[in-house]
């Protein structure tokens, strides 16, 4: 507990330093307008990061979540368009359910065949992406066809303000959804036995088995929850950008995994916190955002994020080794 807490403090300190530095370079950073838009960019990647955190805590690495997000989003929106349904709650549940069902497939393969999660999710991710494109379609559902209520939901704000120029801007209503999910996951991970079983299994699968944890249940919990979060993140994305693109989220694995590692989770499992991950996501989004403000090309952004991933992994590895002495 103490170690985790101190780890979160370090990340928070890094975040504050980074914010001060970025604010000095670009004073516009501190404008509410910019901060609100930053927070908005946290939502989808943040929910995905929660999914990845969960898998990483259990000692695995998930790269299928982008495909599951696409499946949840595209299947739901296409069906809505095809049958002419409009609404919010049902589509959200549908996308979440699709993600959860796909997550169950991951869980069963990992558990029954005792395969390495990275390979399993690499495979299921590719299969799901391929099936969506091959069986459902490759065309983008654009704003003109997107269900109205879904767009309205994605546009809704919890706070609206007007800046000096007279244009209005707001804080997205998706943010409380993300933070609410984070809070629930935090409570589940720290206060319940199923949550602790994830840490235990990640720390030592063999010991978890011997102590009598129901390993199958733990893995189902991990991958179904991760899949559900991915599916939900997918449909929220389409609601927020007003289109459903079956080729969306390509390359997001890098950003999301980097954010989780930046948040202090160990790729070896058993170590990491929701708070750290939320902070890690914010740092990553903020740095990418400042690179855009500085006019740096997207290709170079990937270089920066890749470098951050390696640096953060090296730092956490050093920390873990130190703890072992």
């Amino acid at each position: 507990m103490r170690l985790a807490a101190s780890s979160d403090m370090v990340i928070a300190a890094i975040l504050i330093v980074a914010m001060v530095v970025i604010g000095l370079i670009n004073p516009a950073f501190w404008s509410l307008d910019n901060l609100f838009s930053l927070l908005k960019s946290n939502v989808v990647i943040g929910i995905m990061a929660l999914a990845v955190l969960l898998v990483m805590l259990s000692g695995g690495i998930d790269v299928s979540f982008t495909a599951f997000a696409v499946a949840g989003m595209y299947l739901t929106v296409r069906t809505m368009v095809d049958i002419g349904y409009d609404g919010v709650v049902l589509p959200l549940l549908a996308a979440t359910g699709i993600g959860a069902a796909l997550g169950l497939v991951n869980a069963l393969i990992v558990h029954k065949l005792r395969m390495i999660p990275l390979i399993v999710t690499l495979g299921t991710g590719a299969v799901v992406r391929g099936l969506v494109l091959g069986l459902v379609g490759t065309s983008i559902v654009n704003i003109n066809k997107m269900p109205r209520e879904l767009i309205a939901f994605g546009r809704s704000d919890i706070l609206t303000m007007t800046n000096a120029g007279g244009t209005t801007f707001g804080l997205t209503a998706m943010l409380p959804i993300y933070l609410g999910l984070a809070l629930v996951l935090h409570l589940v991970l720290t206060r319940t036995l199923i949550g602790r079983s994830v840490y235990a299994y990640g720390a030592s699968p063999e010991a978890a088995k011997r102590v009598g944890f129901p390993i199958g249940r733990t893995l189902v919990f991990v991958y179904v929850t991760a899949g559900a979060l991915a599916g939900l993140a997918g449909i929220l994305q389409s609601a927020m950008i007003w289109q459903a693109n079956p080729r969306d989220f390509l390359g997001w694995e890098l950003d999301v995994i980097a954010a989780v590692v930046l948040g202090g989770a160990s790729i070896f499992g058993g170590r990491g916190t929701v708070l750290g991950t939320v902070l890690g996501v914010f740092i990553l989004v903020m740095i990418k955002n400042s690179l855009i403000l500085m006019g740096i090309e997207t290709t170079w952004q990937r270089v920066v994020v890749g470098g951050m991933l390696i640096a953060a992994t090296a730092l956490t590895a050093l920390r873990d080794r130190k703890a072992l002495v």
Partner: protein
Amino acid sequence: MAPLIELRGITKRFGGVTALDDVSLRIEPGEIHCLAGENGSGKSTIIKVISGVYTPDQGEILIDGTAVGALSPPLSIAHGIQVIYQDFSLFPTLTVAENIVLNSLLKDGRRAINWRVARRDAIEVLERLGVQLDPSATVETLPTSGRQIVAIARAVLADARLIIMDEPTTALTGKEVDNLFRIVRDLQYHGIAVLFVSHKMREMLEISERLTVFRNGRKVAEGPISEFDEPAITRAMTGRDLTARRYDWVPTRGMPRLELRSLTVPGEIYDINLALMPGEVVGVSGLIGSGRTELALALFGMRPGYRGEIWLDGKPAHLQTVQQAITEGIAYVPEDRLSEGLFLPRSIQDNAIAGSIPGYSRGGLLDFRRARADTLDMFKAMQIAAPGTDAAVSTLSGGNQQRVVIGRWLMTGARVLILNGPTVGVDVGSKAQIHAIIHGLARDKGLAVLMISDDLPELVQNCNRVVHMQQGRLTGELSGDALTEDAVGDKLRFRG
């Protein structure tokens, strides 16, 4: 009173192999019972039968005098049986408190965890055991002895009536063993039975009240500990008499094989003067931290900053790297052969030639024919029990693995052999054979052997001289009639 647990006529087969053949075992409430046997005697199998991991093919299990059908792990735990495996099965990234309470929470079928209560329970158990441990430290930061205490505390909190400890003293120092014994007696005082699974004679005689001995899947002896002495236990375990012979070395004239002159590694060892003649086996006693391992590392080229001189066969040697040390004919068998000395998944041959690859190079390619021939010679000389030189080292017993490590060094043409804990985790029969091999190497091939060990009988039986180290310095030497276990033990205890 009915026995706590009684196994009757248990037979367990794996494929064509009979791991347990009609064995019985009886443990009374609150007794300290020792289960002895060499590797492969069926000790681990019977533990897994008791803990419900294996279902026996025949036989019955009675708990409190009532026959229970097949046990499963949760069922076994519900009956108050807790196993502490050699690796302790703890969660390294979680705290001491959580590791202690998780078991009980699971056992009680709880869904939520109340941290305040958890912490309180953990502290309570630790206090009951009379140990000081920070409940909020993560387990990975603890030394082995601390982890063991966490494992014991966990078992106690889960209402254990029988705690099975698998080789509990393997990685402990003498003082830590004493502390463990104190805790075990305390458990007994609280009515908890303890089944010690061990192959260490001294411990069995010191701690246990009753003893059961297994050999080749059969029970060969059972009774109160007062009916046994060391030779009797050894005979039961191995099926033969092992007469320990002292190593006699006939002094020779001439050049010392290895001579250290004022060898110093700042912060570790100071002013070591020591000469080893060909054929000598010199023991090094001393507590962990006395500089004994550092001395070995300095000789093996791993302390390049050393001062003083190292002479080999009358010539000064410069041992700045491991490669130089090997070229000079120095061989080192580390304490932890599993992590430092062997490539477990690889074959005996791959492991054997790993120390002398350059010697088998022919135009950049490996000379397989010669490597195979040499490996086979070594395989025979070391009497390794394996189907052949292609067998993976991970499939060998501890004693045979150790032979591969020692044998590898012979293939490098070693003149000086440094052994650090040569028979840790090796069973009695294998131990005697390894000792005989070491004697043969010293006597017949003229190697000088430096043997570092915690095992006093091992030092006394195998060395013609034992030097004592303390705080990085040589502080004494025993040889001839003065070399007795008690004398070496006194030197060790001198500083407690």
